[in-house]
């Protein structure tokens, strides 16, 4: 908060002395860069001092703590070196035909604008939109028909009388679509006009690439504290984690809000994907992660930073909680499945990174409990406090990085998110594991 106050007072100061906006921005950036580098030095120093002075380096948890820190710190240089490799100039005629597939259930408020941003995309090739109305009970169908009356044949509508689930809806779209590239867009996501063009260019630049994740940020980011926190969470998960995974062409999740697949990648998989079972039941959530998983077995998957879109995120904590729980369940399920093949045919660092990252939600809570228990046993509350400080420091460093490098907003609320994470969200994991067989439709 100190930092925020400082930036704000600087802003008023510059306004008073009539300094241009860009000069103000440069100054605040320089300031934040210094803060970023100092924090980085602090964190590394803290880790080095702790490790060298720890008397119990032999303990598994100390070792795990060091591995986790190394992994997390290495994300920054990786994300910094990530390259959006599709910069060649292509002729308009080279661009493939695209089918945008949108599954919608009770989305009357957003679906028209979603279709608008898709159809109005600045795309040189052929483009069609397929909307699957998955048994909506509100005016979704009317809204889609209104869009059809404006844009005509570019939009097709499939209607399910009864709700069948997002996976069925997506599969129906895939079966109908005949174009060369399929783009999945959520019914509450809005594409940047250049989004589809950038995302398809990856397929032109590298024939090994089977799927591309777009760069989705938060539309309603300034609605309240919760959406502010989610906006920084999205920024870090895309511009740090996905960018890192993309360096070795091994992105593990192309989010449903905006991602693209080759036709020849997805058509052979679709039946298997639709009927996929885990622990004896059909998976009904985390469809995007599971689809990416199928593709990742035999194709490269990358992240396209330039392919931008925005999406609406939950504004109520209860809804956010449920969404996070679903994500965690699909993380467990798909993580286990991906773990079966991630070790072969990949850059060793990509595999290693995957397994370390995958261990987080399992070992993370245990590590936290361990530190807490040790803190109580040795009667030194400071130990747990130091652990939490380290955790918040990493969060702050990530948020400063995405702010400085990718212009992400709301980095200032990151410490609050870190606290929320370590005190509440981390404990979803055991619950998610116990209830993994229960599933519900939808993203909210």
């Amino acid at each position, binding site marked *: 908060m100190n930092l925020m106050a400082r930036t704000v007072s600087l802003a008023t100061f510059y306004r008073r002395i009539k300094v241009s906006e860009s000069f103000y921005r440069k100054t605040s950036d320089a300031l934040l860069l210094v803060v970023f580098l100092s924090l980085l030095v602090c964190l590394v120093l803290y880790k080095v001092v702790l490790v060298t002075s720890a008397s119990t380096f032999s303990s598994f948890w100390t070792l795990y703590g060091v591995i986790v820190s190394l992994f997390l710190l290495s994300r920054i240089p990786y994300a*910094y070196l990530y390259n959006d490799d599709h910069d060649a100039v292509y002729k308009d005629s080279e661009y493939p035909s695209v089918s945008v597939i949108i599954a919608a259930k009770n989305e009357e408020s957003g679906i028209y604008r979603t279709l608008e941003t898709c159809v109005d995309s600045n795309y040189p090739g052929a483009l069609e939109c397929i909307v699957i109305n998955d048994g909506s009970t509100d005016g979704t169908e009317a809204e889609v028909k209104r869009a059809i009356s404006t844009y005509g044949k570019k939009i097709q509508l499939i209607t399910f009388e009864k709700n069948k689930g997002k996976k069925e809806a997506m599969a129906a779209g895939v079966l109908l679509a005949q174009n060369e590239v399929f783009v999945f867009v959520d019914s509450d996501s809005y594409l940047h006009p250049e989004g589809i063009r950038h995302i398809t260019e990856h397929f032109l630049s590298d024939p090994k690439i089977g799927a591309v994740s777009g760069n989705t940020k938060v539309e309603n980011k300034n609605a309240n504290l919760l959406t502010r926190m989610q906006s920084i969470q999205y920024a870090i998960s895309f511009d740090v984690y996905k960018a890192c995974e993309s360096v070795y062409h091994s992105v593990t999740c192309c989010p449903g809000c905006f991602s693209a697949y080759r036709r020849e990648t997805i058509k052979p998989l679709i039946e298997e994907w639709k009927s996929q079972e885990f622990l004896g039941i059909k998976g009904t959530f985390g469809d995007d992660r599971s689809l990416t998983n199928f593709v990742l077995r035999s194709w490269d998957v990358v992240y396209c930073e330039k392919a931008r879109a925005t999406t609406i995120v939950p504004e109520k904590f209860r809804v956010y909680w449920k969404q996070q729980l679903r994500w965690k369940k699909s993380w467990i399920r798909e993580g286990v499945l991906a773990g079966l093949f991630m070790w072969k045919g990949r850059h060793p660092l990509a595999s290693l990174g995957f397994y370390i990252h995958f261990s987080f939600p399992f070992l993370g809570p245990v590590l936290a409990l361990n530190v807490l228990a040790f803190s109580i046993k040795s009667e030194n509350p400071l130990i747990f406090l130091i652990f939490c400080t380290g955790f918040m420091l990493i969060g702050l460093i990530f948020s400063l990085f995405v702010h400085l490098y990718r212009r992400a907003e709301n980095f200032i609320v990151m410490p609050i998110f870190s606290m929320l994470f370590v005190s509440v969200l981390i404990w979803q994991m055991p619950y998610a594991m116990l209830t993994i067989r229960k599933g519900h439709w939808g993203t909210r």
Partner: protein
Amino acid sequence: MSLQKRKLVLIGVLALIVCMVALLFTPGTRLLKTVNSHSYQYSYFPWRGIKASEVQNRQEAVAVPILMYHGVRVKGELGTNTTRENFIKQMEMLKREGYETISVHEYDLFREGTFILPPKPVIITFDDGRKDSYYTVDEILRKLGFKATIFIATNKPNENDPFFLSWDELKDVQKTKRWEIEAHGQHSHDEVVVDEKGLKGRYLTSRIFDQATGLESVDDFEKRVRLDYENGIKDLQDHLGINSRYYAVPLNDYGNVEDSNYDKALGFNKELTKQYFRLAFIEALDENRRVLETFYNYKDSDPFGLKRLEVKNMTDEDLKFALNKYSPRKPDVVFPVVQGEDDPSSNMQQLYGNFVASPTELVISTSATSTAARALFGDRGWQNYTLQAQVTRGDAREASIVLYYLDEDNLVLLDWDEHSIQLTERIDGQNTNIVDRTPLTTNDSNVLVSATIKDGKISVLFDGVQLVSDHTIHVSRGAAGFGVWDPNGGEVKVTSLLIKSTE
């Protein structure tokens, strides 16, 4: 920015970080240590209840009470530990009552006659070398101007057990100059397998059973145990440069000796203790928070059986009571109580059996668990005094008056039954009769006994008959008291008592 450029920037930043970390490493390490040692803040205000006049006009003490602690904990399981809150209360009580801490080394010098004790000395000791003997304690000692002694079982820092202070941390402990670090053996607290069933015994007192080679030979046992003494000393020498001369006997008396599978183990350990150390410490008897014997140590106390009070989580009031009860004072007891004088029964120490005081009589009786009873006056430092008592044996088989009581193995005892009387001296558990058993001249169960001890010579007058006169005894000092023995249960009543110093 191009990839090439970004790589250069990255290398630059990495170099910067490495340089900064290298530069800040030493101050960072120091900061962590400071944070560690100052995470328990405490401050004391000396003007809280202490009067300068109380501290003045005090004489040099003749004995030192020794306190023994394990861990001082903020929360968690207590067991033999002390809560920090209570520890602070205890230490502030010591400060308020005018106690001054001395080191074990200073006590050793006092025994040699080259150190003068302060009026109210106390030794504070911690066993085992745990982290919670230091981090939660040092701040309090520092603020109160106290010092303490810590006994290290050296295999703990050798094995980097996180519950115990590491050698690096012990170096910091040493640097404070408040702490004296002494020996507590090496593996001395370990358990070992003693038979084919896997039964456990203690490292120092049991011969190890090995499935392949059977029971350890006496030679191997002696070698191993001797090595533990030598290694404990050597570790302290090697890591801290300390030449340790004092030994806290592990597990208070080498562990539960009943568990031992070798009956000469205890004797062998005692021999080694005498061989390697100048002083050794054991625990004073207590039972259900009641301290049963003195933990004051005199100039001539057994150097290898120095008594410590295990304080645990006593209240400060209980600790103060125990310190007062056993503190050396001149022989001066009057019963029945004269108005305005102290009630002697409040200072009476009940070793075993029952003891009840009323305004007119003191009753010592056997209990459900004990066919004998013994209660003491005095602090075991008494030397020259006279005792005059009116004692009723009643139906009890045997009544006794103990004249010098150091411990159960060192005492002077007058005992009589219906027909006869004897006066015995017991030195290191060996009885010698000063007066052999002789027939009584009276049938009266109520008798007047008077005894005088002066300059190592004893005289006893029993019911008007001179039993012995100016006979030399070898026990040098001790408390006075009464006892009863009857397998079927019985009691002895004291209806009047007068003990006066003859200094």
